[in-house]
């Protein structure tokens, strides 16, 4: 499943897409993110299964453009900690 967390506002599209079918709930991304954007919980869109997956925390969903800002300097942008940490290539950022 492709879970798109984030938003589109007047200034652009800011989505973190998590491909939950590949997620093993290892929690490496949670550890790597310096700002607590990610967490591992029971899959919120599949309530009948007991599978755990990574999600963007409720508190961050409306402001990831800002929270992720420091990870995304305008020049010489390094690889993102969350994406680098994930062994299963679950995480993608739209901006």
């Amino acid at each position, binding site marked *: 499943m492709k879970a798109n967390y984030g938003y589109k*506002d007047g200034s652009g599209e800011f989505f973190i897409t998590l491909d939950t079918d590949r997620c093993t709930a290892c929690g490496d991304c949670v550890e790597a993110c310096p700002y607590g954007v990610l967490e591992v919980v029971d899959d919120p869109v599949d309530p009948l299964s007991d599978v755990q997956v990574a999600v963007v925390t409720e508190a961050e969903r409306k402001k990831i453009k800002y929270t992720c*800002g*420091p990870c995304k300097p305008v020049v010489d942008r390094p690889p993102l900690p969350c994406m680098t940490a994930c062994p299963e290539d679950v995480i993608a950022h739209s901006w």
Partner: protein
Amino acid sequence: MISAGIDVGAKNVKVLIQEDGKVLGKGSVLAGLDMGADIKEAFDAAFKDAGIARDKVEKLYATGAGRNEVKDADDSYTEVGADAAGVAYLYPEARTVIDVGAEEGRAIRVDERGKVVDFAINERCAAGAGAFTEAMARALEMPLEELGKISLTSTKAVPMNAQCAVFGESEVVSLIHQKTEKRDIARAVHDAMATRITSMARRVGVQPEVALIGGVAKNVGFVESLERDLELEVMIPDDPEFVSALGAALLAAGIAK
């Protein structure tokens, strides 16, 4: 040399006239429907303020979103370029410029010579600019100036969840209903806004000294929240909303490059 800079912003049109680095006069008008008329009016105000005739100005540079509307400008610069030039003249020690206007926020990193190294912009979303505080002041039914002042007296940090000026208004109204003190709401508004501006600034890397310009720099509540968030003091010139126009005028005169 006497030169002029005009900043055709989203909300105001500002003109500044200078001679050899000394400001002779300024004029500002609210932008309405007829851009041509606004530009003329802003010029008239600035010439009146300077007490000189229009033909004394040897060169005119334009900046701002509507800079192409200024037909008789000798050249035009982006807001980023004009901001950097203006700040480099006022504060040569500044390495970071934060400009918060009515409809746009910008962060610019400049080198020792005042040259732009890189920049980030918050645009086209009212939540990232002065329009946000204006809308919240309206929801609180108080003048903007008052909003800034009472924010300083707040004793409690209340979180604000809305990241949109429209939803923010509803949140402010419900905070009022919950009997949250107005001064604490004011601080919540400024804290929220400051967080957005700070993270934009972090994208260019915040290096001291930091200069804050643009109309929102006059809001003392916002300034306090921003300084708390940045964990440093910012430098604010006397007329922060005229710095872009000043930059354009200095570029026109060749004082800034």
